[in-house]
């Protein structure tokens, strides 16, 4: 999986009604890596992330031209959207566990995709919680409501919930922006572990976070990808003046 491109985005334009939120995006996302999207708010990071698993389908008046390919398959060309979202999982900005038990939260995805046997569900629940580094904290309260967990635990629960359907890619939209520094640290640590098995795309408003966890970084400005390079390269020798201004804190 490593080094092979997992997503291929070609001349992608996206409109919300008459407003063009993404302008001719061309990029390849590498498998087995963590890609970070950075840039000032409102410049299209979340929008591009959501085109990868077609969450934009839910937005009325959203129109897309160009192509997005997942391992060569056209995402917008007749692919079953529910299967796409099974392969490309998503973790949201604000932790959003369902108002049900920890167990039922994790089992929701597998049940959606037809797993019914108790023993199979039990083992996928345990494995997902372990992979999301939260098993030890919740193993005695699987039947307790997920909303009683702390914010950081809820977010790791949501990561576990996403892992439970066996995705290839994880999309994360500012997953730590609502969390305290300690919870953030735990999640960053987790990301580096998860990189071994999953390709990850993470939106972050925090440049230190991008340098800490990502292999490649894309810098967004006003709906365009200004620069896309290895994270080390981008932060040490930015090619574009605007990138340099942003990462040195001159705006944003």
């Amino acid at each position, binding site marked *: 999986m490593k080094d092979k491109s997992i997503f291929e985005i070609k001349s992608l334009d996206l409109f919300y009604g008459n407003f063009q939120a993404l302008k001719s995006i061309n990029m390849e996302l590498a498998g087995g890596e963590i890609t970070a999207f950075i840039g000032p708010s409102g410049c299209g990071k979340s929008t591009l992330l959501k085109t990868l*698993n077609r969450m934009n389908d839910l937005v*009325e008046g959203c129109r897309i031209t160009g192509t997005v390919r997942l391992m060569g398959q056209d995402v917008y060309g007749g692919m079953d959207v*529910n299967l796409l979202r099974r392969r490309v*999982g998503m973790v949201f900005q604000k932790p959003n566990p*369902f*108002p049900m038990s920890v167990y039922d939260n994790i089992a*929701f995805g597998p049940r959606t995709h037809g797993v019914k046997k108790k023993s199979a569900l039990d083992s996928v629940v345990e494995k997902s919680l372990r992979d999301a580094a939260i098993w030890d904290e919740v193993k005695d309260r699987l039947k307790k409501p997920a*909303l009683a967990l*702390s914010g950081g635990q809820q977010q790791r629960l949501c990561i576990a919930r*996403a892992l439970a359907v066996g995705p290839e890619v994880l999309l994360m939209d500012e997953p730590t922006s609502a969390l305290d520094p300690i919870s953030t640290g735990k999640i960053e640590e987790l990301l580096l572990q998860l990189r071994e098995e999953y390709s990850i795309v993470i939106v972050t408003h925090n440049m230190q976070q991008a340098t800490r966890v990502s292999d490649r970084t894309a810098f967004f400005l006003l709906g365009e990808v200004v620069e896309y390079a290895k994270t080390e390269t981008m932060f040490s020798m930015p090619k574009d003046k605007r990138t340099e201004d942003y990462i040195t804190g001159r705006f944003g």
Partner: protein
Amino acid sequence: MKKQKQKLTEKAFAVLTWGAAALTLGTLAFLIAFILIRGIPHLKPSLFAWEYTSENVSLLPAFVTTAEITLLSLLIAVPLGVFSAIFLTEYAKRGNKAVALVRLTAETLSGIPSIVYGLFGWLFFVTSLKWGFSLLSGAVTLSIMILPLIMRSAEEALKAVPDTYREGAFGLGAGKLRMVFRVALPAAMPGILAGVILAVGRIVGETAALIYTAGTVAQIAPSPMASARTLSVHMYALSSEGLFMNESYATAVVLLLLVAGINALSGFIAKRLGGKGERQGGE
């Protein structure tokens, strides 16, 4: 000088609000005490006999009828109301003309006096459809009467479910049907139940609409096509005949207890369901 005047107004206002509260509470307490004092001494076991006779005006048949009509009305109105609410919140596109129309209709219907429903039920179900005075005519009429209430409360409850739950479900590859029935609807359940319980209260307390549709037969109905009276109608009949005032008060006590019981139940359910989901944080 000015300050003193302000202080005086404040004091007057405090007295006024306090007085209003006391008057409300006092009236209510007086009413309840009055009914209990007049009714309890006449709560004899014979009032709970299976048969209603002209010597022993048993209220048990009316009690059974109340349960039957309530259940039947809910059976019709709850699925219809909840499904319309699901359509309005989850399926209809924003700015859909049908949505505005359905909402306007519901709002209008909920303001109509119940006697109008009674007349409609009498003209349509009793006369035109030839269902006669029957449990069915009564229950269908009442279900139309409570439909707006059920629909509105279900709609509000569904609208209050955060969109982040919906995104979470879709993000895992769930289809719309699964999202609605496994995530949105369970999350909205406390609000929906609150509406249902309000509706039960309206059914139990209804007389006008039922007299015209379910009739006033004082026995347990042998079939849904037979006439029967609920407790409220029973009480109305007893007191308007004027022959069994004591029994009428006794019936009022039972009705009062029933309504209090329903309220307590609703509080209990809301606590059970609400306490599970709404709590945030912890740790």
